[in-house]
């Protein structure tokens, strides 16, 4: 039982910089700053001031996913150095922990925060550092380069977009709506040839709310974000999370469970690395119709040369991470 609520987390931030207009933020022993081009994370290790620099657009695209996914399953690596691990109620923030040159020398830093505290700080960073006109969810061809330069306004409308979820399936009475022009989801420029016909359902009387179908291709052709799965069917703990992908997955996702990928259209190249060391493990080219199980002990990053459709099949069974960590479950679903 929780006797006391968490105090509303205070976000620690400086006033806007007089030159760039951006604020700096601190979270535990980490400091986040940005300038016209770069985001920088700083910390102290062994008495030395350490820092890590990322391009500001790459940082914002990664931060957008971490915030929108609520730290997701397992590890969200912004790059080889910086990332978060969801401990479900708490979140680990690290820099250098999984980068051997830093961790071997003890120059990395890892801290654990209550989820509300780190979420509030990440949202504040995203809100302050995202300029008007830049959409971190969009493909590069679909947004401006206004991430560059000094602070100019904000883009709250884009960064506060809700992830689409459903109770059972979109289109059912009382459930999420199907995507249409009328509710703000025009067909994406890459999918103008996708049929918009919907299946016709003839349900026995009394089963009208039990039998349902919709065109997943039509639904996905109207996706307005990239690398951001929505939930499109819920059956027990089985979740279908389809998404459209273009350019580079802005994070390297380290799984804490097996994820199944089904390539529905076009192609994605996946780079697969060891979750802990980043050592290359495989390169996978998935073509339309291919199915892959991403093991529970890897991190992966995808490259999609044109917008493609991917179905991510998630297992939401409680306690899975512990079963994989303890070795009770093998990190892959089958052995050859």
């Amino acid at each position, binding site marked *: *039982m*929780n006797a006391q*609520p*968490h105090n509303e987390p205070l976000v620690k931030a400086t006033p806007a910089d007089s030159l760039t207009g951006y604020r700096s933020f601190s979270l535990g022993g980490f400091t986040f700053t940005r300038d016209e081009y770069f985001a920088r994370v700083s910390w102290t290790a062994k008495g030395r001031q350490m820092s890590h620099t990322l391009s500001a657009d790459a940082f914002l695209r990664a931060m957008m996913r971490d915030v929108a996914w*609520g*730290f997701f399953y397992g590890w969200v690596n912004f790059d080889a150095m910086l990332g978060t691990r969801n401990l479900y109620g708490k979140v680990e923030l690290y820099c250098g922990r999984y980068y051997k040159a830093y961790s071997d020398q003890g120059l990395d830093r890892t801290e654990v925060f209550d989820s*509300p505290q780190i*979420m509030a700080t990440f949202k504040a960073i995203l809100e302050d550092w995202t300029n008007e006109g830049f959409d971190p969810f969009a493909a590069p061809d679909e947004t401006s380069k206004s991430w560059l330069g000094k602070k100019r306004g904000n883009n709250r409308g884009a960064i506060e977009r809700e992830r689409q979820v459903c109770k059972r399936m979109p289109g059912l009475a009382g459930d999420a709506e199907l995507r249409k022009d009328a509710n703000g989801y025009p067909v994406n420029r890459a999918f103008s040839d996708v049929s918009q016909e919907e299946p016709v359902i003839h349900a026995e009387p009394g089963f009208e709310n039990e039998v349902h179908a919709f065109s997943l291709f039509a639904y996905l052709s109207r996706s307005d974000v990239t690398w951001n799965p929505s939930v499109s069917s819920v059956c027990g703990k089985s979740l279908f999370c389809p998404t459209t992908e273009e350019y580079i997955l802005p994070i390297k996702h380290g799984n804490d469970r097996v994820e199944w990928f089904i390539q529905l259209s076009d192609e994605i190249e996946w780079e697969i690395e060891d979750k802990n060391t980043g050592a290359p493990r495989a390169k996978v080219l998935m073509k339309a119709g291919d199915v892959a199980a991403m093991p529970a002990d890897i991190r992966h990053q995808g490259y999609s040369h044109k917008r493609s459709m991917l179905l991510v099949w998630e297992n939401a069974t*409680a306690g899975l991470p512990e079963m994989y960590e303890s070795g009770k479950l093998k990190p892959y679903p089958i052995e050859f």
Partner: protein
Amino acid sequence: MQWQWLCALESLPDGACAEISCGKEEGAPTLLLYRSGLEVKAFINCCPHFSLPLNSRPGEFLLMSEGRIMCAHHCAVFRLHDGQCVDGPAGNTVLERVHVEIRDGQVYQCGPEEG
């Protein structure tokens, strides 16, 4: 109607949440009880985002100020007075409400007659 005893009101501190078992079947969802003064709200302990419990450890919830709760899994935030999602990845969803009543200092769940 059938009334099922859940807990004594005094066992729930004001402003606190508790997790109560309510089903006999394996995997049955638990109930989330929240006390505000002399009122108790109850919800099915299931976040509409990924249909997971709101807590990751038994009985431990991420209570926030102003009577809000954060799902431990992906940080969706809900108002406890009506279950409405107000932030995070669960969109415009609502926690499923369960009708409870307080009688003589005891909290009961109201459900349909069995059989």
